[in-house]
């Protein structure tokens, strides 16, 4: 069974802090994704990566950056946290097996509060 592990379930930080959210997957998946989930807005893509050291902006990348130094790990970085970044953050991974319509597998999420 695919395991996507996010390092923290709950996190409280202060405005202006640099925040790191970590995600690790154990299925050797090529693709990894960061979404934020907000009530009434669904899930929105922040960044994704399809290979080590590769990253691409999603729909709402402003105020975020990412790092993928190893295939299994994908980190989301809030450069200077602001209150509007209070949200649930979801990490996901998938294989590159597009032909077989492989789904994404999600972590439990990190509920981040910025005070």
């Amino acid at each position: 069974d695919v395991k996507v592990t996010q390092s923290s379930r709950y996190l409280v930080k202060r405005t202006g802090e640099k925040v790191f959210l970590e995600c690790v997957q154990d299925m050797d998946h090529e693709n990894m994704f960061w979404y934020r989930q907000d009530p009434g807005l669904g899930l929105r893509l922040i960044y994704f990566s399809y290979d080590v050291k590769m990253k691409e902006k999603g729909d709402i990348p402003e105020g975020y950056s990412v790092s993928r130094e190893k295939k299994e790990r994908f980190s989301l970085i809030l450069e200077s946290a602001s209150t509007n970044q209070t949200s649930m953050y979801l990490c996901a991974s998938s294989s590159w097996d597009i032909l077989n319509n492989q789904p994404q597998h999600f972590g439990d999420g990190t509920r981040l509060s910025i005070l």
Partner: protein
Amino acid sequence: AQRVTQPEKLLSVFKGAPVELKCNYSYSGSPELFWYVQYSRQRLQLLLRHISRESIKGFTADLNKGETSFHLKKPFAQEEDSAMYYCALRDSNSGYALNFGKGTSLLVTP
């Protein structure tokens, strides 16, 4: 740009009643569509993918290209079906990320 629309934020039905969660999409190519479900305090998980044409937990979804819809249906709702349901379209322009609808909260009451 791809778009997924789930017109209902909340759907409330009685146990044993049929349920249909609506999903419409706009996409210029050949769509790859999924339904994901999130039960209370659990992670988001795959429910159905259109290519499999499967039935999971009694749910089915048929892709209707003419109406650009992928509605999720179940003939007899159960209380344990209460959850948040998201329709998603795979985006070939974003590393095959998922473009999600805003979700429909299904409440099945006894």
